[in-house]
């Protein structure tokens, strides 16, 4: 199975992003997804900056995919989507059905925020040009197995296997709201929270993380114990989602497990030290997402 680095969900200063991808170029990731998927107000990197990163990573031997924004609201969001879809150099990850329309039959990756819950829908997307699909984050292993029994031939499967789960998207910006600011005058508050802003329950339990218009799990999804099961099911790519520190070590750890050089128990220990929060794997096992089920 290949390793993909999912699109960066957070908003970091330009220098931090560039340094991050320089470091990622030297890791064992096979595929890198680039681009701003959360908020059109984030401008530390311009489209030309993302394209320059694409060139750098391709030169380093990585497969590069450009990801579209997930929630398209304004005419300018739509214009940016269409420009991205029209590019003929890099494959595109479609995170909205509008992107698929704009791609007009060109090959694409169906991102995890499209609602693909059954084989019939997968067939629709394959006929529209999908060459790979990323399973919805909440989908269970049992459902995946049922889907893959009917998967169109040649369509690859990717599974989100590590990182805080992007669970919901809203028109409202929760990070700005925390500072009593409207979205249009957010003062780029997301920059203050490189792994998101923690939201706890009133009895002190970490619950969610606010990341602008996106709400994430507080816990870090971690399927390191389920990699063999994925391989058996026919999963082609595992997706790791960027965090602000230690990402190269996260990649190295997963890579070592995939190669058979590191046992799962040791990997769990290493990842526990690297992750910003406790691990969970409930979705895969058909449980509430925040559960952690022993393998």
């Amino acid at each position, binding site marked *: 199975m290949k390793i993909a680095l999912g699109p960066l969900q957070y908003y970091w200063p330009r220098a931090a992003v560039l340094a991050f991808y320089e470091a990622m170029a030297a890791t064992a990731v096979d595929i890198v997804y680039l681009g701003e998927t959360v908020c059109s107000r984030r401008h530390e990197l311009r489209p030309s900056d993302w394209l320059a990163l694409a060139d750098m990573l391709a030169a380093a031997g990585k497969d590069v995919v450009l990801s579209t924004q997930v929630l398209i609201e304004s005419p300018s969001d739509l214009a940016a989507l269409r420009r991205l879809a029209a590019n003929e150099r890099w494959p595109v990850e479609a995170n909205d*059905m509008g992107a698929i329309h704009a791609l007009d039959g060109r090959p694409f990756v169906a991102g995890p925020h499209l*609602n693909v819950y059954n084989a*019939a829908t997968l067939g*629709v997307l394959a006929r529209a040009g999908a060459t790979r699909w990323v399973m919805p984050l909440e989908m269970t292993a049992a459902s995946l197995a049922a889907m893959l029994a009917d998967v169109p031939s040649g369509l690859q499967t990717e599974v989100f296997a590590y990182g805080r789960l992007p669970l919901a998207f809203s*028109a*409202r910006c929760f990070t700005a709201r925390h500072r009593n600011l409207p979205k*249009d005058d957010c003062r780029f508050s997301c920059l203050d929270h490189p792994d998101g802003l923690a939201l706890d*329950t009133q009895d002190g339990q970490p619950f969610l993380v606010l990341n602008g218009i996106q709400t994430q799990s507080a816990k870090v999804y971690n399927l390191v114990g389920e990699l063999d099961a994925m391989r058996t099911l026919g999963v082609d790519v595992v997706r790791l989602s960027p965090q602000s520190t230690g990402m190269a070590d996260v990649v190295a750890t997963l890579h070592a497990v995939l190669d058979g050089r590191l046992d799962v128990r040791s990997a769990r220990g290493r990842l526990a030290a690297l992750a910003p929060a406790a691990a969970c794997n409930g979705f895969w096992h058909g449980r509430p997402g925040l559960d952690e089920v022993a393998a």
Partner: protein
Amino acid sequence: MTSTPPSFELVCPAGSLPALKAAVDHGADCVYLGFRDATNARNFAGLNFSEEAIVEGIRYAHARGRKVFLALNTYPQPGGDGLWRQALDRAATQGVDAVILADPGLMDYAARVHPQLRLHLSVQGSATNVDAIAFYHRHFGIQRAVLPRVLSLPQVEHAIAHTPVEIEVFGFGSLCVMAEGRCQLSSYATGESPNTHGVCSPAKAVRWQRTPRALEARLNDVLVDRYADGEQAGYPTLCKGRFDVGGDTYYAIEEPASLNTLAILPQLMAAGARAVKIEGRQRSPAYVAQVTRVWRAAIDACRAQARRYTVQRDWMAVLDNVAEGSQHTLGAYHRPWK
């Protein structure tokens, strides 16, 4: 009974045959309903229509020149297509005026096998822009799309102006702060979500606990809110609780409130929206009667004299009485809400 179809439809919820009749009797142009199974997103005990009730409901509505839409707006899970396809097959023979779908695979089946069946795109299909709407139009021939409640009024106006597909907008009822069809918070906490089980913050996960200081509302072990004595407790919908962020305890995601767009009804009509949708299939026939009557009056007033339109106090009094959390909001239609 009007001889020409209205150019702006009032679409009202029917969770039961009495509610359907209440909606029709009080002026709804269209009603929407579901079967008693997982094919629609309000699959609660005691709600929805048996085969006999649907047949009678369609007869009652059609005799009065109104339309019936069938909600088949959940996502078939792998291997489960049969239930949804059979529901579509039944709908096609029963004479519903349209089916409201979210799942592309199901839309593909409907377009191929029942090409004469009018397809409406559910809000759960999460089409927030004209290119997404165009995808469904091009591949399945949808004739109407219900917009997720994430667009500002100018964004709604722009969308309507740039698509040939009819646009239906939510006007009143419980509000989702997340983009519909793009929220997995509920399955994170409980294992069930709108996309997997047609439900959010399911009742089976709700736990109430009284402590010396407060009444606590949980979904499984997740504390959603705490109510002091004298505070009105509401249903613990996950995103509507009070949480701690950076040392502040507040409605960090959304307050319990109802969407109410009476104030911008003239703009919605002027923009060319084809219909306004009232949320509430889980509400009582009395609720449906009251809300339908108010919206019928408002639409008629607007149609008669758009420039003189004002929101009447007695309309608001009726709606205040039935609003969630007794609060109203324009939601995303009003830019500062974002």
